[in-house]
């Protein structure tokens, strides 16, 4: 186990290195930030001076070496737009994004696990049909629409929750449900189909033949097996939430990473984009490692090698 973790960490370093190169190149070939920083009236000479000051006149690989040296010291450069170091700007947004992703995920799981299980165990009954119907609707509703509907209903009409912003528990309810309902819909269908497959396995028949109560057959023998593939999907969804709750963040003016990333891309605020992508990549990698650990715990057939 310890050895395994060390090996995982050894994989992280080259991956992060690669990501830093890719991001660096992509950002530099997509446009000249100097144009955005100077007024239209600036002469070509002014531009040259600024480029030289920023080191943008150097060859790309040299710029990269300077960049990576700084990155290793935690310095992603300054944001053109905010005039502050980029990394703290990104890290500042991380808790808000994490919070939203985690609560949304939790809502998704709390709804999807029982619904998916019930749907599978009571397949082709009225209950199953109702759950399937709701999950089709849940999946079909776009986040921005769902968000606006929730705001109209719960904030504007009922006045139960604030319309936007981040603050106390009441602030997160609507954006988290906006994302969570979609997640729940998707996961419900996944859990249902997984459980259906598991329930037809031979070892489920064995469990029944041992005289176990049906609750135990499903809850003990089927559930954990059914969970294994679901964990992968949940982790994928969680990581995609870290980088991409943009729509919801916009609707609810939620000060998260997605918002920062998109505005920075629009403004060619390279330092911020690089720092943000770097951090997101790191989070994704850590999530994947954790998923792997959970996987190993759930499925003894996977060995540490």
């Amino acid at each position, binding site marked *: 186990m310890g050895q395994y973790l060390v090996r995982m960490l050894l994989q992280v370093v080259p991956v992060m290195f690669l990501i830093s190169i890719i991001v660096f190149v992509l950002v530099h070939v997509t446009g000249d930030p100097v144009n955005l920083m100077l007024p239209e009236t600036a002469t070509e000479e002014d531009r040259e001076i600024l480029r030289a000051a920023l080191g943008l006149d150097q060859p790309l690989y040299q710029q990269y070496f300077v960049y990576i040296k700084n990155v290793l010291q935690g310095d992603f450069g300054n944001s053109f737009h905010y005039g502050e170091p980029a990394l703290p700007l990104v890290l500042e947004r991380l808790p808000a994004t994490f919070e939203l992703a985690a609560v949304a995920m939790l809502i998704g799981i709390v709804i999807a696990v029982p619904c998916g299980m019930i749907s599978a165990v009571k397949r082709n009954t009225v209950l199953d049909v109702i759950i399937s119907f709701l999950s089709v609707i849940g999946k079909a509703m776009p986040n921005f629409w769902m968000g606006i509907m929730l705001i109209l209903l719960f904030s504007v009409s009922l006045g139960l929750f604030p319309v936007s912003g981040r603050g106390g528990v009441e602030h997160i309810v609507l954006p988290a449900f906006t994302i969570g309902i979609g997640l729940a819909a998707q996961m419900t269908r996944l859990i249902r189909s997984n459980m259906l497959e598991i329930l037809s*396995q*031979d*070892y489920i*028949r*064995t*469990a*029944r*033949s*041992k*005289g*176990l*109560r049906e609750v135990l057959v499903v809850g003990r*023998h089927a559930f*954990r*097996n059914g969970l294994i593939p679901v964990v992968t999907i949940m982790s994928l969804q969680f990581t995609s939430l870290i980088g991409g709750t943009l729509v919801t963040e916009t609707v609810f003016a939620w000060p998260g990473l997605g918002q920062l990333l998109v505005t920075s891309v629009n403004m060619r605020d390279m330092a911020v984009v690089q720092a943000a992508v770097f951090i997101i990549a790191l989070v994704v990698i850590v999530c994947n490692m954790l998923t792997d650990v959970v996987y190993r715990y*759930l*499925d*003894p*057939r996977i060995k540490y090698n």
Partner: protein
Amino acid sequence: MSHLLEVNHLQTHFKTPDGILRAVNGVSFTVDAGETLAIVGESGSGKSVTSMSILGLVSDPGKVVGGEILFEGKNLLRLTKKEYRNMRGKAISVIFQEPMTSLNPIFTVGFQISEVLRTHYKLNRKAAKQRAIEMLDTVGIANAEKVYARYPHQLSGGMRQRVMIAIALVCQPKLLIADEPTTALDVTIQAQILELIQKLAKEQNTGVILITHDLGVVAEMADKVAVMYGGEIVEHASVEQIFHRPSHPYTQGLLASLPKIHEDEQRLYSLPGTVPNLLESSEGCTFAPRCKFASEACLQSKPRLALQGEQHWVSCLKAEEVRG
């Protein structure tokens, strides 16, 4: 004396989109304590559905629609769900064909043996473990204590089937159903497993229903044989009678299809004609279309199991002619 198990006119049907499939259609037989009944018949003849019916584990879209299953004189079909559940794994156990997939991959074999003990007896963890290890030992697993903590994927097919036997027999059931317990195993392992089942069943005076394709196994292990065809029992007799005086044309066909020299290749696949369509209920004998003895009468009326000698039941209008 009443039998350990008495199945009377059992009918198990499946509702399919094409109509009602009569997988088991009026099957009757008995099993006594310490006795081994072999059920033989082609693939799809209803052997497994019969055993699942006895266990009360026929699942949708199937249903036991008629007959009775008397276990120690009590009709199992009248039991509540809970009463039935309490019999399973304790009074009636089963070993399935697929040792590779019949154990849950995410639990240790020890847990899976202890589980059945703790389901039926008020045992604490330690006592259950103790008993489970003893049982692993009994089924011939060396290093029982170590194997207790192993996962199924760490064991060979033969070992897993031994574990399945341990699970099935740890509560000392009165009836054991073994549904092709060795089909998936190597030939050399097959004999060991069958011997083990036979030995433990004799020790515990367990009644055994042995479902098999292998007539060699039947000759070796069975006291009685029921031959199934198209969801019905066409002949039911002692093992000697079946081998020496087969009185149903289908039984004769099975025996004739045996290669006489190579003993390990006694399989039941080479009968001419096709398996009957269980969706249609025929007027006459289900076997008539494949039967060389069939006459007009056979196509008109269904034969019933009738006594043709001591404890020798045959369902054929021409049994006497067939026996010759």
